[in-house]
């Protein structure tokens, strides 16, 4: 959910950016990271832990904790909390360790 009214900050309308998440079309805005765009769309589960398949979301949002790894444009282990969203990105929940091609 996005903030529209804030006593201190301005959140002006920004350019919409389209991306795909697990095969479904979503949109974020310019300036979003992949993770912020997903959270704005109400998606909090980004991946699963490797051994026990527990849901994984954002924890630190500054590229430090490795909780937000996803597969982006077929590259696994992308820190989505610090990776800017770009038009046409293919974002996938990373189940398991990720695959290289």
């Amino acid at each position: 959910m996005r903030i529209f009214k804030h006593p201190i900050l301005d959140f002006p309308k920004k350019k919409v950016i389209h991306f795909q998440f697990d095969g479904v079309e979503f949109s974020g805005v310019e300036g979003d990271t992949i993770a912020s765009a997903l959270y704005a769309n109400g998606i909090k589960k980004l991946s699963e832990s490797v051994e026990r398949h527990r849901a994984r979301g954002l924890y630190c949002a500054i590229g430090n904790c490795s909780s937000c790894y996803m597969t982006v444009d077929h590259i696994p282990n992308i820190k989505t909390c610090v990776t800017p969203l770009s038009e046409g990105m293919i974002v996938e929940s990373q189940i398991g360790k990720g695959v290289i091609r």
Partner: protein
Amino acid sequence: MNANIVIIGAGISGTAIAYYLAAKGMKDIVVVDKGYLTNGATGRCGAGIRQQWATKMNCIMAKKSVEFYEKANQTLKYPGDIEFKQEGYLIVAVTPEEDAQFSKNVELQNSLGIKSRKITKEEAKEIVPHINTDMFISATFCPTDGHINPFKANDAFYQAAKRLGVSFYFHEAVQSIQTVNHKVVSVTTDKHTFETNKVVNAAGGFAHEIGLMAGVPIPVYPEKHEILVTEPIEKIQGPMVMSFGKNLYCQQVPQGSFVMGRGTPGALHNHDIESSWEFLDEMAKTVVAFLPVVGELRVIRQWAGSYNMSPDRQPILGTVDECEGFYVACGFSGHGFMFAPITGLLLSEIILNQPTSIDMTELCMNRFKNQKTIEVEKSVV
């Protein structure tokens, strides 16, 4: 304090020797280490297990060690798992000389019961589909070679030894070894003095210095070797891929990471174990040439450790002429981890005056006194 024996070094050679001695009933065994368990070369090694060697002694020791490791969880009653993954070593020949040598190696290995075989590039590609066949002429493959988790393996020996009554002293550095008439009488650390007439030098990279404390000049020196590990991914590679000519070993460990290393050309003979960026550069070039897809992975960590190099790249085991009661288990030249079970067994036999499981002529320190009998192991990275 009194001890029947003091073992210097709690790397896997030291813990394996302690385990075998204790299992055979020896009491008051002391193991001293200047750091913590597995802080030295054991915890820093590539942890590959291979039987494809060019010298008879190395082949025999490797084979016996593999047989031990296959049953180690049960034998050592280890509650965990040493993670012995036997998916083979693929060793590539990059020159006609290597190709010819490898045929001889396989013949020797087969004669000793090691199930290695010479294979073509095409066969190699079936085993490791992402290998670049332009980089080599032929290869050898032994399916029972593999990889073990070195922390778990050392922990297994350590726990078994402790259960059998061995005392371990960590963060305690040996400072001197006292001798009378060329016989060991005691070992002094920065915290204790142990009265003992038996000492084992299993000090890895520091084996030379420990030797000198007992007046024994051991012809070994430390040499830095570096390793890196990548992010984990789903399994794509079973075997270790290795090239002596191009200075490379690379494997994917069960957790998914690729662990790879190479020797440092021109490395100084000292205790430096600092990581270098030059290693990253050279390692990346080499591995990408052989296994291009690995270039897609990010490096998550790098480290270095000391090989303890001997003149013929074979270990130095057993008694020494210079000092009674001083035993050596060093000079493994980068292969102490994979030889640990046989090292433990042989040293226990020598220390307890039992007949040895293999002939020690080519392993004892005396061999260097007659240069002619030395056969240098060529199959090393």
